[in-house]
């Protein structure tokens, strides 16, 4: 095989490093880009550069943001008494879409997982404790981590550390998703749903 364009080859090489993109897809994308006008290529390149240069992390909650503090932490209309603890910034995005929660967030940047060499010291847990300790307005911390082994361990660990502060620690309810029928729910979910039932 003879390569006639080193540039094309280099683009394919870079694109194939993207998640979920194999060499074939990378080839298709590169050839597609080659056929576009240069405005599009430049704006795509600029978007990628901006992603690295302009997007930062909010020093308060750890969420991705163009400004520091982020728009949520900076918004006086948000409820200052509640913090919702999530694993990653995309969880913030998901909860925000529901428009249900009007408090502020705390992004941990992961969950405890010794297998992947992630201990509590690698997460933004100390920052959370500091926030809760310094801000008297906060009276509820809502844990919204995934109900798997790692999420549970992290919730347990944080709950224990928060005991020294005068805040209520709650967790989101686990149970039956909307729009499904009881017969399709697995036993574990059902027993969780029963355990956390509430009065009508």
């Amino acid at each position: 095989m003879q390569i006639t364009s080193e540039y094309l080859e280099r683009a394919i090489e870079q694109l194939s490093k993207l998640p979920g993109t194999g060499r074939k897809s990378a080839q298709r994308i590169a050839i597609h880009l080659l056929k576009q006008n240069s405005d599009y290529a430049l704006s795509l390149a600029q978007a990628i550069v901006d992603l690295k240069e302009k997007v930062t992390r909010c020093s308060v909650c750890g969420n991705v943001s163009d400004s520091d503090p982020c728009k949520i932490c900076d918004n006086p209309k948000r409820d200052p008494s509640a913090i919702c603890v999530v694993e990653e910034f995309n969880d913030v995005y998901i909860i925000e879409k529901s428009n249900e929660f009007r408090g502020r967030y705390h992004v941990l940047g992961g969950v405890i997982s010794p297998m992947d060499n992630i201990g509590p010291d690698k997460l933004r847990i100390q920052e959370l404790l500091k926030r809760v300790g310094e801000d008297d307005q906060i009276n509820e911390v809502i844990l919204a981590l995934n109900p798997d082994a790692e999420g549970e361990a992290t919730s347990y660990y944080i709950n224990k550390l928060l005991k020294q502060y005068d805040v209520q620690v709650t967790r989101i309810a686990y149970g039956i998703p909307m729009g499904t029928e009881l017969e399709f729910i697995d036993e574990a979910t059902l027993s969780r749903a029963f355990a956390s039932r509430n009065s009508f």
Partner: protein
Amino acid sequence: MRNTHTELLNFRNHVETKIDWAPHLNVITGPNGSGKTSLIDAIHYLCMSRSFVSNTDMYVVNQDESYFMIKGHFEGQIRSEFDVSCTYSRGDGKKIFVNDSPLEKLSDLIGMVPVVTLTPDDKKLTLEGPAERRSYIDSFISQISPGYLRDLIEFRRVRKQRNSLLQEYRGPASVLEAYLEPWNVQLVETGSRIVAKRYEVLEKLKDYLEEDYAMISGMDLTTNLEYQTFCTPGSDPKEIEKAYFEELERVQAKEIEREITTVGPHRDEVVFYLDDFELRRFGSQGQHRLFALSLKLAQLHYYSDELDDLPILMLDDVFGDLDLKKTEILLTALQQHKGQIFITSANPVPFKDYVTFDGENNRFYKVENGRVEEVNT
């Protein structure tokens, strides 16, 4: 539950095989290496998502090909009719489909079609180490309790995390203890449920085992089994939790030193007895064989009583090992089982004297070089 039709593509030496099965007894004969076991192993794949012969899916693929596919049509009481298919290719791995929709987790398949398998390897159950018995008990209970299987998967995950923590952590012991706590809580919660369920099932199994051993051996030796775990087992998970926490606390220093989880159901043992003698230490070859056979029949009868539908029973090359008298007893017992049965045997002799192969309820098949032919008489 019944498998009415199976299709195999590139599955060991079956390049393309399609068979309709009888609702009751299916006897498959043929020379060694002709592909008898592969036929029932394919059905096993559709019930348990894996082979009962080989540990690696790769070796099951026909050697000239890069993938295999199996399809089966099932009928039964719990779910009236459904299709299960399983594909494997070297690149994509294994996928299971139920009625053409892919299963998210392979473990979701377990229990849909309960199956009991008798093989010459069953001797290992009583002869070899505790791991053999644990894995048998786990597959036994998983087929009748999805919650148990979920707990097993969860427990394994938590234990792996906990072991990683014990191995990787370098720092003060007090911090490690705080780091261990969230894992201990989950280890105890899932582990205690596992112990309680094992206890409950094994207690019930005792009676079945005694009855089936007496039937097969024709002797009045009393069988027994003892479930050994880190505490006196019982059926209440809450009480086990208490003992588990105490035990973890007791061994904590040792676990930190040895960097591994030493207490839990992953160290359990089931000891079998014949007339108060420990079978593993004092049993003869013949006793081991009959005990293992009775254990599997006990499983069959347990399932039949416990479930709303009858399990599928598979006997792979079991008759070669038995004398005429035992063969007769076993065949009589099989006649009493109303569910579907698959038997492979290199030697066709014993069956035709006891069973009528009418092509309706019972069918007789001959396999040669991966080709199957129905030959009822």
